[in-house]
């Protein structure tokens, strides 16, 4: 029997509408009643959480771990360590690996690898279409049996609306949520940056906001048609927020997620052709950033996620057109969100931020996580919302360094991460 008591922390558990200064007990890897500890004979580990927030372990439902196939960028082990250092106890990895996670044996491999080497909970997602090619359905039923928590072609987008409709309709019988990377290939073409002032000035091919909005609208229509959940990943454009707001008001099973870079940066950041600002969908205008912030404030955008996308230095250190899209995010995500959403812009309070990183994704994915209910698995994140720190990419746990936030000074971060009652990371 092992026991831990986290003393004097501010316990915020949005699923149970709790926000109080109280001790939190953990017995044998599960959240326990305070009284269960008193009877303990063996030694009780004490954690002093005075001045800290004690939150359910945070969930990031949009992460690329690159294994199998690209372990020079990241492994399940290094990605899980990065997650732990960022305060995340559960991450959902995307299927665009090599081979892609479009078959049950790759899912089984990922789960085994995660069990052996991952210090946090790694939940795989499976592909919508075979080889992420958007042409025929992946074996969605077998993927579900193998244990995927969602399906998505992330990094790609099913262009054929009929195929997408059938995927959503088919996933419905398993209750499996469909996540979508919203990008209309015809409208976006070879676009590499937001189509606007900076693309015009720099002569870089534009990626118009309409290229995202068209697919968000498609997804709203299909969620209605099939009466099943579609979740729009990494929303970047003002028009997408407007479409989602209207649809959610009508009760459509549609949701949207925001990444830190899309609220922290605008397309102005690309002016020196630094490929650490080359992201898909691209950094957009201030008007788009403002709309995302409003969407977070009014609940239109309900999920926060990193789209952690590691790439090796030598892959990013090339011509802008040629460089791969994406930035690492796990280790800066919470700091960016607390600093910008809570401190600087005051768009939401810390309770809502924790809710968006815990029970919101847990409910969407229908997983047992994201609460501090008695008896729940003791995944806990200790957060110092006022700790001032500087981002240093050379101290990252991730195997990659492609962050747009190197040197940024942030206020607020995770200081200790506990998975199933065991501390996996401590500042």
């Amino acid at each position, binding site marked *: 029997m092992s026991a831990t008591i986290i003393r004097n922390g501010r316990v915020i558990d949005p699923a149970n509408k709790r926000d109080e200064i109280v001790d939190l007990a953990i017995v044998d890897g599960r959240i326990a009643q305070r009284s269960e500890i008193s009877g303990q004979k063996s030694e009780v580990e004490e954690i002093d959480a005075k001045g800290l927030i004690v939150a359910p372990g945070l969930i990031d439902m949009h992460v690329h771990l690159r294994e199998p196939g690209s372990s020079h960028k990241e492994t399940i082990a290094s990605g899980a360590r990065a997650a732990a250092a960022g305060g995340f106890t559960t991450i959902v990895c995307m299927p665009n690996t090599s081979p892609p996670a479009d078959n049950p044996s790759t899912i089984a491999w990922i789960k085994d690898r995660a069990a052996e080497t991952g210090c946090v909970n790694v939940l795989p997602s499976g592909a919508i279409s075979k080889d992420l090619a958007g042409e025929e359905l992946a074996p969605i039923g077998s993927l579900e049996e193998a244990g995927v928590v969602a399906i998505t072609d992330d990094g790609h987008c099913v262009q054929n609306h009929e195929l997408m409709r059938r995927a959503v309709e088919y996933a419905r019988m398993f209750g499996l949520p469909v996540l979508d990377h919203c990008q209309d290939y015809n409208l976006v073409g070879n676009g590499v940056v937001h189509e606007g002032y900076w693309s015009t000035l*720099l002569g870089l091919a534009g990626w118009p906001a309409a290229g995202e909005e068209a697919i968000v609208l498609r997804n709203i229509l299909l969620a209605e048609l099939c009466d099943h959940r579609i979740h729009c990943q990494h929303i970047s454009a003002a028009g997408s927020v407007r479409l989602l707001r209207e649809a959610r008001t009508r009760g459509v099973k549609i949701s949207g997620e925001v990444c830190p870079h899309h609220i922290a940066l605008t397309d102005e950041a690309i002016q020196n*052709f630094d490929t650490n600002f080359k992201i898909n969908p691209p950094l957009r205008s201030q008007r788009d950033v403002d709309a995302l912030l409003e969407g977070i404030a009014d609940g239109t955008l309900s999920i926060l996620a990193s789209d952690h996308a590691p790439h090796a230095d030598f892959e990013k250190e090339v011509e802008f057109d040629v460089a791969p899209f994406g930035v690492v995010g796990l280790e800066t995500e919470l700091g960016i969100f607390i600093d910008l959403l809570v401190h600087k812009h005051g768009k939401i309070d810390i309770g809502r931020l924790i809710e968006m990183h815990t029970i919101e994704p847990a409910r969407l994915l229908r997983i047992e996580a994201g609460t501090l209910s008695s008896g729940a698995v003791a995944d806990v994140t200790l957060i110092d919302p006022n700790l001032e720190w500087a981002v240093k990419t050379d101290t990252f746990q991730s195997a990659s360094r492609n962050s747009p936030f190197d040197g940024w000074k942030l206020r607020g971060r995770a200081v200790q991460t506990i998975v199933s009652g065991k501390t996996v990371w401590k500042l």
Partner: protein
Amino acid sequence: MNVRSPDMNRRWNRKDLLGLRELSADEINFILETADAFKQVGTREIKKVPALRGKTLVNFFVEPSTRTRTSFELAASRLSADVINISASTSSLTKGETLKDTAKVLEANHADIIVLRHSSAGAPQFLAQRLKSSVINAGDGAHEHPTQGLLDLYTIREKREKIDNLNVVIVGDILFSRVARSNIFGLLKLGARVTLVGPSTLAPREFEKLGVSISHKIDNVLPDADVVNLLRIQHERQRKEYFPSIGEYTQLFGLTKERAKLLKPDCLIMHPGPINRGVEIDSEVADGLQSVILDQVTNGLAVRMAVLYLCGGIATP
């Protein structure tokens, strides 16, 4: 001419020429003034000066070009530099070497000046940030072609004796044109008014934010123009979604003989080449009295000598 004067040190301190957007009006004027001296050299019996003797220039053309590469090669030879030409097909880029590694190899071979032509916007910035050698942008994607912009400015200044307050009309595929962007940046800095003309797909409204006017009716802007700069129009490759046909383009935007009659007699007609006769410009107009197309080529040599001389003097490999 190979001794740097105090005036020169004060007015030019860049090892690279990446674009006209980052230059001040004074820096642009200084290049044009320096080019005056080199233009005069071109009229002498012995056209060579020792300004870059002992320096090595690499013409690194990842995207094909004949006229720009030849112009740089001639400019470098006249400055007594040693010149090496490398094209995409002869470089290790085709063997999978990265641009950075190829450039580092050039630097390790003591290349003082690298003239880069590349299909990706920002490629010269990428090299300049990583090399001690001078990097001269000879055209990067749809971004900038600063020496073309400078030779256009030089030609206007030479023929019209000023640039300030002139009405300059640029016609054609603006969206994908690095020549248009360098012209816009340079002309605005020197006080010209710029009007872009082309189909709304290739001269989109977003350009207004750069400080220019846009028109889709060429006949309306020709009568007030002091300079008309025609860009080469392409339809064969990826422009099929942008306008229906070459025929319709010519009908709406071509500088035909009839349209040329709308021009003021002293209006200059320019074209960066290569010309599509009968498409963006009628043959007679291209060869007419108002055309300064060949002056542009001659001036290109003087301007490139000035740029190599100024930047090459700063580089310390």
